[in-house]
């Protein structure tokens, strides 16, 4: 199968959906000729014109609000938020307006909007361009949250998001834009709420989101060399969450580590760990543990930044402790 970058996969998804449905359009900062700073949208304005690839001023709440209004009246906007960190600027439009409109109207109004944004540290961009803020919006009922872990997921999930009648936020890891993966030539979509078992195992379950799937897979390789069989699962969407697959794996292996690049406290790792404890407690041989980003603002210096995010080595060490019982003894 051919391999393409995550950036190309996103681009293809948009091209296909914009050709399929004339109501789909893109708006955001420098999305047209510039194709975004990450060049993900290169070539789109040439094919679709400036009515469907709309450059906006640097007014995140403004263009997000306009996107919500357009979505409520028959369009299917894909709003491009240049950095995930800017989500704090648009919280009212996203969380008070888009997320609640369907409910507050008693089901009469819909907001079929996609917010494409990014996440991920270690790009030496410091505290305001490096955050992974998906947990914050996952807290708000009414939004769906997708977190692609490769080019394959990025394309399939984005196409599903564009066809969804609800507001969907997609977090792409900005460090993965140039990572390649196998992506079929044929059209496909990936349903929301269906986790993907990336690797089967029997001794421990590693649940990872976005780029943490790769971290978990590398840890699984290292564990295998030590004779430990790790299962790796990618939830793909955290809202809706495929609790069934996660719980089934926990019951099977009896040990779980949840790995996510959001801050560890009050985050996705906590939520998933709780659900596993509630549903699989009597099957567990060890406490479900979490590895998230350190609870500090992301620092600039490489010497500091690199230790704030989960690494395969940390997952590997943690897994060994869980399997050996060391962690339980320590507690």
């Amino acid at each position: 199968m051919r391999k393409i970058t995550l950036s190309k996969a996103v681009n293809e998804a948009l091209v296909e959906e914009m050709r399929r449905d004339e109501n789909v359009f893109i708006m955001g900062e420098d999305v047209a000729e510039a194709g975004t700073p990450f060049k993900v949208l290169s070539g789109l304005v040439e094919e679709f014109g400036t009515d469907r690839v709309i450059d906006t001023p640097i007014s995140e709440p403004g263009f997000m609000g306009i996107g919500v209004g357009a979505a409520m009246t028959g369009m299917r906007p894909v709003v491009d938020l240049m950095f995930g960190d800017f989500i704090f600027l648009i919280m009212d439009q996203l969380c008070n307006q888009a997320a609640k409109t369907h409910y507050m109207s008693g089901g009469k109004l819909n907001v079929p909007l996609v917010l494409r944004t990014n996440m991920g540290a270690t790009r030496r961009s410091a505290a305001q361009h490096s955050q992974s803020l998906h947990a914050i919006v996952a807290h708000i009922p009414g939004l769906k949250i997708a977190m692609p872990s490769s080019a394959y997921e990025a394309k399939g999930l984005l196409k599903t998001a564009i066809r969804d009648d609800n507001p969907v936020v997609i977090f792409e890891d900005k460090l993965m834009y140039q990572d390649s993966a196998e992506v079929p030539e044929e059209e496909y979509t990936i349903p929301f709420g269906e986790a993907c078992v990336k690797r089967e195992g029997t001794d421990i379950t590693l649940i990872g989101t976005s780029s943490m799937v790769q971290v978990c897979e590398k840890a699984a390789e290292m564990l295998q060399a030590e004779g430990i069989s790790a299962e790796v699962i990618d939830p793909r969407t955290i809202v809706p969450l495929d609790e069934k697959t996660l719980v089934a794996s926990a019951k099977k292996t009896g040990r779980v580590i949840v790995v996510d690049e959001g801050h560890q406290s009050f985050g996705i790792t906590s939520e998933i760990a709780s659900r596993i404890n509630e549903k699989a407690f009597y099957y567990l041989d060890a406490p479900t543990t979490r590895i998230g980003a350190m609870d500090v603002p992301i620092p600039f210096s490489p010497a500091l930044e690199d230790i704030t995010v989960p690494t395969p080595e940390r997952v590997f060490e943690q897994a060994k402790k869980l399997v050996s019982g060391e962690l339980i003894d320590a507690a």
Partner: protein
Amino acid sequence: MQYGLKRSVRDSYVVGMVVWSEGLSGQPLPHCSTIKSAAFQPTGPLYLPSIFAKLSVLANVKGLLSHTKRFAMNKSKTKLSADDALRMFRQMVRIRTFENNANQLYLSAKMPGLTHMYSGEEAVAVGICEALLPTDKITSTHRGHGHCVAKGADFKAMFCELLGREEGYCRGKGGSMHIADQSNGNLGANAIVGGSMGIATGAALTAKLKKTGGVAVCFFGDGATAQGLMYEVMNMAALWKLPVIYACENNGYSEYTKTEEIAAGSITARAEAFGIESYQVDGQDVIAVNELSKELVERARKGEGPFFLELMTYRYHGHHVGDINREYYRAKSEEQDWRDNRDPIIRMRGWLVKNKYATEEALDELSKEVTEDAESAVAYALNAPYPDVSEVDMHVYTDVEHVLA
């Protein structure tokens, strides 16, 4: 006789500003230092460059250069039919009657929560909405019952919503602050001050992209002009020439604070900074509001938008129904003056009778019908069922019937 409005050298409420306006009664309005000058006599055309120049000079003197246009209506050229005039009157009466009933429901503890009365501002919602088609969109505010009625809503479903009943427009999930008849182009009342400015502008973007010829009106108050979102979306609306009309209902108070304490400079100058054609209108004069709205709506349909209106109006009640003792920010005498001398319904009534569109008796009969209609809707809503508790997790997502199942 003309109805008019003046430029926005800053208006009346406090500084004794010049609001040039003659009301439906033909008399200069109270509380306004009326400018009487040949230069201010409307001559028919809506835009009067010579006057405009003089106004600019005036404004310059005050250090507030403004290009706000003065809308002057020549009543002899009014094409308002008896039907249209009476419908506007009826809609204003319906809003007032709805609000009186809503207030009673609150005072008698039959309504959950609280609500914000639109009484006194009826001419704004009616004058504008009567210039729109059902397919045109509006966004409304926490003080939204008036917009809802004016855009064609029915009393029964409105009272049901107010009381949290299943047959309410939002199945009881929205309540007073989110009430909307969505089927008539109302995209919702919004409980975040200024929160709907993006939505209205987005609806206008849809109209432009899909070439529907539709128009969107964004209702908001003077208080919302303090929100940054307004400036962002007005900028984009002007850049992209969107068919949106920003309708600022300046009722003189931003919640419990006088407008001049929260708004520096002129309100219309804010829109003018983006090159948006702006008007200041007597919001108590339904005919003036309607005539101007019709003109601007048609121009917006042709791609000449956006536009900005500052509608000078007044809120009879407090910020909300529970805001009873409010003399610390507003004198009772001021409220009484507006009720007695600038009431939009009384003025329209006088005009209808004087011009023989209707007799006093016919208008009394009309008001009686509306009262009965409201009373029967209230009685219906009070006995209507609440939503089943199983509805609590419905309508969170379009494609999941019960999200917690």
